[in-house]
């Protein structure tokens, strides 16, 4: 599988998905998932709604059984093993805290189910309440807590058995932006301190990319790419990933012939560019090639500068902190985006409808391997 080729080899995997398929009736929710999760790794599973993230997590937790394939947990095949016999606690999207128990009782729950004695339960729960800084709420009812406090209770409750792996299903989706960032830091530090494996499901790119060691990108049950955030950002595997990340311009071109010793001359609608040979080692004339140029690697010039490139007109602008994303439209109707600092843009003095020339260094082109097989 493509995903396989990109799979980073971890010396020791705590979880292995071996061609796992999950069907609900005729509907395939997860298709041939094949990957490993390293011990102590922070893995994020990202994708749009309904792509099978939760189903993947639930199979790992033992709440759903795979239709095909095998899941190994700590070297043991766990297909058919009940969730209560695994130690794969989950932090739920709905949090699923017990409303009829106090904070302390919620945290003690997993220990109680395992038959741990009262005194030991109390001590171990208190340790986690303290770690999550919610000791003062120990005797409160769940519905007397704020969103962030509930979040911490859910974490303490899941971690109280000191598991080797923690599963998190969009735990921060209900929080406001500010709290989200704070909880991201809490989670990140927690994972580093404990050194345990986190499997974190989210549909937020910023959450996945800021916290995870590796990211799995899913779409409609398929794994599209697995890699570190840098890898995925710089070298998206296919059109879906590039579009999902939303920061690159995608071009469909045709190889015209060699350009010098280490490049290919490629024509696309509206212009020509040179692709480095390293991106397309076994190219040949007439081959179709899909490549991307990220928005921040695009250059803008005024038409009278004589710079060769694609002519386009400005459609609009969007502020992104210290930079702006300029949206352009070419004569051929293709939409392009270019990210530039405000200073640079003010020199060009652009407004809606302005004509510009877009160009880039050949080194900033990246061929999408998944589209060029």
């Amino acid at each position: 599988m493509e995903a396989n080729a990109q799979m980073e080899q971890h010396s020791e995997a705590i979880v292995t998905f071996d061609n796992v398929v999950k069907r609900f009736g005729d509907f395939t929710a997860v298709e041939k998932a094949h990957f490993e999760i390293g011990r102590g790794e922070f893995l994020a599973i990202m994708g749009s709604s309904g792509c099978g993230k939760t189903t993947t997590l639930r199979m790992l937790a033992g709440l759903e059984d795979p239709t095909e394939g095998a899941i190994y947990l700590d070297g043991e095949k766990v297909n058919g093993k009940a969730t209560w016999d695994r130690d794969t606690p989950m932090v739920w999207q709905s949090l699923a805290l017990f409303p009829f128990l106090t904070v302390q009782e919620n945290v003690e729950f997993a220990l109680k189910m395992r038959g741990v004695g009262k005194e030991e339960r109390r001590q171990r729960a208190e340790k986690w309440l303290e770690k999550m800084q919610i000791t003062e709420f120990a005797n409160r009812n769940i519905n007397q807590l704020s969103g962030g406090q509930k979040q911490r209770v859910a974490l303490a409750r899941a971690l109280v058995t000191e598991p080797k792996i923690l599963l998190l299903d969009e735990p921060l989706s209900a929080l406001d932006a500010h709290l989200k960032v704070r909880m991201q830091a809490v989670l990140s530090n927690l994972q580093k301190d404990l050194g345990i494996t986190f499997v974190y499901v989210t549909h937020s790119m910023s959450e996945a990319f800021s916290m995870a060691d590796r990211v799995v990108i899913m779409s409609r049950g398929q794994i599209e790419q697995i890699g570190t955030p840098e890898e995925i950002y710089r070298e998206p595997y296919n059109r879906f990933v590039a579009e999902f990340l939303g920061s690159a311009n995608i071009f469909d071109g045709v190889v015209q012939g060699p350009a010098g010793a280490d490049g290919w001359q490629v024509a696309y609608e509206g212009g020509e560019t040179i692709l480095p040979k390293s991106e397309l080692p076994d190219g040949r004339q007439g081959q179709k090639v899909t490549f991307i140029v990220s928005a921040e690697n695009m250059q803008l010039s005024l038409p009278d500068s004589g710079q060769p490139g694609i002519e386009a007109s400005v459609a609009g602008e969007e502020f992104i902190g210290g930079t702006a994303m300029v949206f352009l439209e070419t004569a051929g109707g293709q939409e392009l985006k270019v990210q530039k600092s405000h200073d640079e843009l003010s020199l060009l003095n652009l407004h809606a409808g302005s004509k510009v020339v877009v160009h880039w260094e050949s080194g900033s082109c990246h061929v999408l391997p998944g589209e060029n097989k």
Partner: protein
Amino acid sequence: MGNENRIINLLLKLHIALCLLFIFAPIAGSFVFSLNSDRFPSLPLGEFSTEWYRLIWEDPLVWQGFANTVVVGLTVAVIATVLGFGGAYTDFRYNFTGKSFYLALALLPPTIPVVIMGLAMLAFLSRVNLSGTTISVIIAHGVMCSPFAMAIIRLRLSQMDPDLEAASWNMGGNQWQTLRYVIIPFAKPAIFAALFITMAVSFDEFAVAWFVSGLNETLPVKILGFLQGQVSPRINAIGSLAFLSSMTLIILAQLLLRSPEDKK
């Protein structure tokens, strides 16, 4: 609020007033006459008296009926609530073909006319040599009351986040532990409400009990016996007490069903 229609408002208030009047006037009347010294209910009232209460207090027949009622009521409440919980949890937990048919069947008994129910019960219970025993009343009332319990508990379970159950399994609780430590605690207010309501229904139920009770009459059946014998203000006294106990049970149930999350 400016957009309320005055006439509709007035009519609604009138409607409520009439309802209350028709429901409570006879009860209030019987309560007033139960404390009246006159033998026949007539105006003007005679002197204030607790004579009739003293008489029923001293009547062994009333005590016997009352004891039967309490024994039947308590047993029925427990049985019906257990059955109702089972039905409600089955509905919550499992999906199977024919489930809606099963639910319709389980909730059916209250819609059967009581006379038919009573006759059927009598026919059946006498076949198995149980008619005329306290057990027969318990069986008949159990059948009639469990749908109420099921409806109440089902409503509560439908408010439960299904993730709670899965979370409990995920934290090492097997199905039994989860039932005991998650489902039952969550449904607890509804379970108590079901106990009180089924007890109240059994207290008040007359027709079926009349068919199957034989010599072990419950209080409502006893009251009919009194009425057939002679008209006595004792009936008013018993009625007032029965009303008080039923109301207490229903109010307790209502309090329990009122957003249980608020208290703890």
